[in-house]
């Protein structure tokens, strides 16, 4: 299953799909963390509606975008925006063979090492979310000389706060770090919590 839950109809449908399915597997950032549209979770959805649609009364939407696992039990989640085709094949093969698929939850950093990419944060001071991001893409962005934007969401036990300090230590602005965490997986628990802490502690917003 792909896609996030954003309408009352989605909520009804996902329970029906769960009832009809033996092994629901969710794929993609929308289904596993709420997707980019989860940015509404940090805003007033009524305002969002009025920005895009002239007649808000025609529109039916929930005020939050949530992952499918927030509503029903999901057997396996495959991360990424977009998902990686090799991982998809691994998940299909694993389930068909009756074994647990292997999609390691370690950081993108390990994939950079495997690929032989020199660390762009250490070598060039380029802000990179690789240390807190779930592997799977093959460390694509650093191989193209840009920082990871965490499109695969958080790795297991990410230390988001420590990375945020490190990145600001490289001269990035707090707003840049906040926006980086508020990306395609803004609704993922560890990213959400860290971004809200950053926002709360912002001196310009009356924080520490």
């Amino acid at each position, binding site marked *: 299953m792909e896609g996030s839950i954003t309408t009352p109809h989605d909520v009804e449908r996902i329970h029906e799909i769960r009832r009809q399915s033996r092994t629901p597997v969710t794929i993609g950032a929308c289904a596993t963390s709420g997707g980019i549209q989860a940015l509404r979770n940090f805003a007033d959805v009524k305002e969002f509606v009025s920005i895009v649609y002239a007649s808000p009364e025609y529109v039916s939407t929930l005020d939050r975008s949530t992952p499918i696992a927030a509503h029903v039990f999901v057997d396996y989640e495959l991360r990424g*925006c977009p998902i990686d085709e090799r991982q998809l094949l691994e998940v299909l093969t694993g389930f068909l063979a009756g074994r647990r698929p292997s999609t390691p939850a370690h950081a993108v950093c390990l994939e950079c090492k495997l690929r032989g990419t020199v660390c762009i944060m250490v070598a060039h001071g380029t802000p990179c979310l690789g240390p807190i991001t779930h592997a799977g893409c093959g460390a694509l962005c650093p*191989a193209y000389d840009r920082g990871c934007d965490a499109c695969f969401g958080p790795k297991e036990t990410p230390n988001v706060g420590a990375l945020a300090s490190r990145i600001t230590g490289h001269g990035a602005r707090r707003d840049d770090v906040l926006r980086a965490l508020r990306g395609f997986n803004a609704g993922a628990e560890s990213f959400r919590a860290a971004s809200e802490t950053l926002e709360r502690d912002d001196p310009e917003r009356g924080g520490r």
Partner: protein
Amino acid sequence: MSGKRRTIKVDYLTRVEGEGGLTVRLRDGHVESVQLAIFEPLRFFAALLRGRAYGDASDITARICGICPVAHQMSAVHAVEDAFGVVVDGPLRALRRLLYCGEWIESHALHIHLLHAPDFLGFPDGVTMARAQDDAVRRGLEIQKAGNAPLRLLGGREIHPINVRVGGFYKLPDRRELARVGDDLRRARDGAVATVRWVAGFDFPELEHDCEFVALRHADEYPFNEGRIVSSRGLDVSAREYDAHFVEEHVAHSTALHARRADGGTYLVGPLARWALNADRISPLARAAARDAGLPDVCRNPFRSVIVRAVELVFACDEALAIIDAYEPPPRPTVPVTPRRATGYAATEAPRGLLYHRYAIDADGTIRDACIVPPTSQNQRTIEEDLERLLPTALALPRPELVGRCEHAIRNHDPCISCATHFLTLRVEGE
């Protein structure tokens, strides 16, 4: 007065990108109304771009659609560059055209061979069709794969490429890497010529639509990233003037906004419009393929759009190969970009037609306001009009064929419902 009413309903349209349906209401055998319903849930892209950095626009808007992320990336970077007065030319500009060629090839190849051809040949889907038309489906998939190759090389991956940025790219390919992509594209170009011949042999239902065609037109190129917005009725404006000539309205039956001309008229973007306004700009090989297929310079039968798409497939392979052959790596992957407070406008040619982006940006580079008008929003009303014209000639058909004909007419325009939401299920009411 209540005559005999009938409703034809398709609850979920298949072989289109996204979720939509169709409701046709009939009274006494006459078409009373046609409503293309798009109920793809709302994602509020235009709203969530507010407060983001200018550099985020291309990565975020790519997520509007998994089939044409490059189109959104291109419209986004060009609009931001318009705001900042940045000009990207030379090899960097050519590489952007190459990236767009890749997207046209994979998108057109998918639509022609797997989404649209089954309608002409009477198969329920591409997989069933593959049993009888193994060669054609195999060829289509090989062409698609060849289109994906430049996306993978130049963009890092086929879906939501990561290498596009305002001012150019993050990293440039070298000549050797590009040459390898060229080998696949040469085979794809031969395949595309065979596909033009294949689709030209289909049976085309009679249908003429006298709508206004709107497309980009460039001084000497078949349009991708640049050009004036021109129409078959004499419109000739820059992207900066788009808002004065086109308006979007919100209708109850659709989460996609409907675009119209400012004077209230409907119009069509996409392959038919592009071809009618730019046939003289296409490559000689594509032009010869069009001539052999009997395609006139202006074609108004939406069913024949499949021939135009196939001709554009030949062109996109041709153009990609020309770019690869001429490529000399520039010294740097990007030109300097300095933010300023301004509004930027851009229209580019997505595989499905004109895609307009507009961004108002603050001096520190923060996006203050964003507007995105995708091709399917612009075509939605025209697709309904196609059906209004087609239905009177099709009502005598048995119901399964009638529904099939309606779906076929919708797929003529390769609607991208995900993009437009802001698409299909057929209902015919009155039974």
